[in-house]
């Protein structure tokens, strides 16, 4: 589904250049569950943004379902994002003036789904995420865990093929964190390709495939031992 070939991204910080992605080669198949770990500043978010077509590489190739994305213009990339990709941002990025339900329905609205259908699907998703009674609340009236769920609901309401989550549990207590993780893993079992960036070792080790990044390079790419029984189902 995804293929990165010698991908590079350098940021200039004043005089100094930072190699955020350094010759990345990566293949991800549909339905995989990956975690990305590594020290701060190692380029995890940059990789995630690259995969989500939010950023452009300086060099290298990024094939998404066989399509060379570096050749696409912004409008086509926007369309790809709307068709295939769901984001869960570390900072939620909810629209403050919109209610939880309106935030969740925003992707459908942008895709031109009619109001009644939007309502039906948002109701479904909110029930699944346990926030059905929070639909009319504004983001600031919600707790961190509830906001994260709203963000997650928004990410999955269009049934994306690829779900990119940047530290989805970073701001949550262990209880809500575990709930959110359970939810996204359920989605992965339903067939979504899942990529989670995290500092949380426990969360990272739940993934079937675990990447480790240091200084813009993938230094480790290993599969979880299927033999470990108690980590299979939380």
């Amino acid at each position: 589904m995804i293929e990165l070939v010698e991908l590079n991204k350098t940021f200039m910080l004043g005089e100094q250049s930072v190699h955020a992605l350094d010759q990345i080669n990566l293949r991800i198949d549909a339905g995989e569950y990956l975690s990305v770990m590594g020290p701060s500043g190692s380029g995890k978010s940059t990789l995630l943004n690259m995969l989500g077509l939010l950023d452009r590489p300086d060099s290298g190739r990024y094939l998404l379902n066989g399509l060379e994305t570096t050749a696409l213009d912004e409008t086509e990339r926007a369309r790809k994002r709307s068709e295939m990709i769901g984001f869960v941002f570390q900072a939620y990025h909810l629209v403050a003036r919109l209610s939880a339900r309106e935030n969740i329905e925003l992707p459908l609205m942008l895709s031109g789904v009619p109001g009644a259908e939007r309502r039906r699907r948002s109701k479904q998703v909110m029930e699944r995420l346990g926030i059905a009674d929070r639909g009319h609340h504004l983001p600031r009236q919600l707790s961190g865990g509830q906001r994260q769920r709203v963000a997650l609901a928004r990410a999955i309401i269009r049934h994306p093929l690829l779900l990119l989550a940047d530290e989805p549990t970073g701001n949550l207590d262990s209880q809500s964190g575990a709930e959110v993780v359970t939810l996204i893993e359920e989605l992965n079992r339903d067939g979504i390709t899942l990529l989670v960036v995290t500092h949380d070792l426990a969360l990272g080790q739940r993934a079937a495939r675990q990447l480790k990044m240091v200084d813009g390079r993938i230094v480790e790419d290993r599969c979880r031992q299927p033999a470990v029984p108690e980590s299979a189902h939380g």
Partner: protein
Amino acid sequence: MGERDSLLFCWQSITRYRFRSAMILLAIGFGVAAVVVLTALGEGARRYVLQEFAFLGKDVLVMFPGRNETTGGLPPVTGAAARDITLADVAVLGRRVSGLQQSAPLVLGSAAVSFQQRSREVIVLGTSAAFVTVRKLKLARGRNLQLEDIERASVECLIGQTLERELLQGEAALGALLRVADYRCRVVGVLQGRGDAFGMDLGDSLILSVAAAQRLFNTAGLFRVIMQVREGYDPEQVKQQVIDVITALHQGENDVTVVSPDALLSTFDDILTAMTLGVGAIGGISLLVAGILIMNITVISVGQRTEEIGLLKALGADDRLIRKLFVLEAVLLSVCGAVLGSLAGLLLLLLGRQLLPQVDFAVPLWALFGAGGVAVGCGFLFSWVPATRASKLLPLNALQRR
């Protein structure tokens, strides 16, 4: 994104950023209200003036000797005529032109009018009874002139109220014998009010039979003929018929000018419309200021909503949609502002009508729609640049507010 959803999205933004929206609404509302009120003042002035000059009415033609090629202007007071218009001409016109209801010949001069020992120099008008009816003059007392034969001098006369006051000084006016130069006449009626005619104050004038005035001023020619067009006839056609008949009477030479007051009034009309346009434009400047405010606020709004723009892009909105949303929001606000401003302006006018009932304040439609159009156009134009800039933001940079 569907059109209805775009509108909904913008509407939510407008109603949920109350302060910002209120500022724009206020600015545009003020601008539109200013245009509405200013043009209504101009239009009110125009109507006031037209009404003051409307004494002649639309169905009246004025004929005077001499050719005047320029149309629309005021007729020259001393026309160097090739040939006089005579009472005989007027009589023929009355018989031949069926579209003429009645005609009032006019001879004009000034003379000393005396009563007992007192004397006063006034305007003397020689005319027929038709003058009072065509000009819709009102009599304070007495009756109109009664002339059996227009070509015969009568002793009857009408006087204005100023003349009555100054000359008779409280003595009974009706039946009083006046001397006009060496001619004697008897007052049968007193005119009411000023009854302005060609810039003259009829209040200080004396009106007598046209034949008497002709003798008095020793002239055969007429100064003016005021003709009333019969109802249902086209004044332009009647005017042409009058010219044709006179041309025939004057050995094939067209040596008279016939104007309809419409032509006269249209000159005033043009001037006053230009004035209204001018004040409307001044009001328009405030709309421009409102437009610049829209631009500033859109810039600020784009700055404040950078994160939202990044999010929308991450969710798949393309540049055009982002620009459309921001422009639409500004336009929507402008429309609301224009509507509110118009209503406020109209309300102020209602108030103005209460305070000054004699002036007919009215917003010309062009001003109402023009102001609204300019407001919405400003909203569109001035939001375009910031909205385009917003749409060009890179999704990641916008999300991270870099």
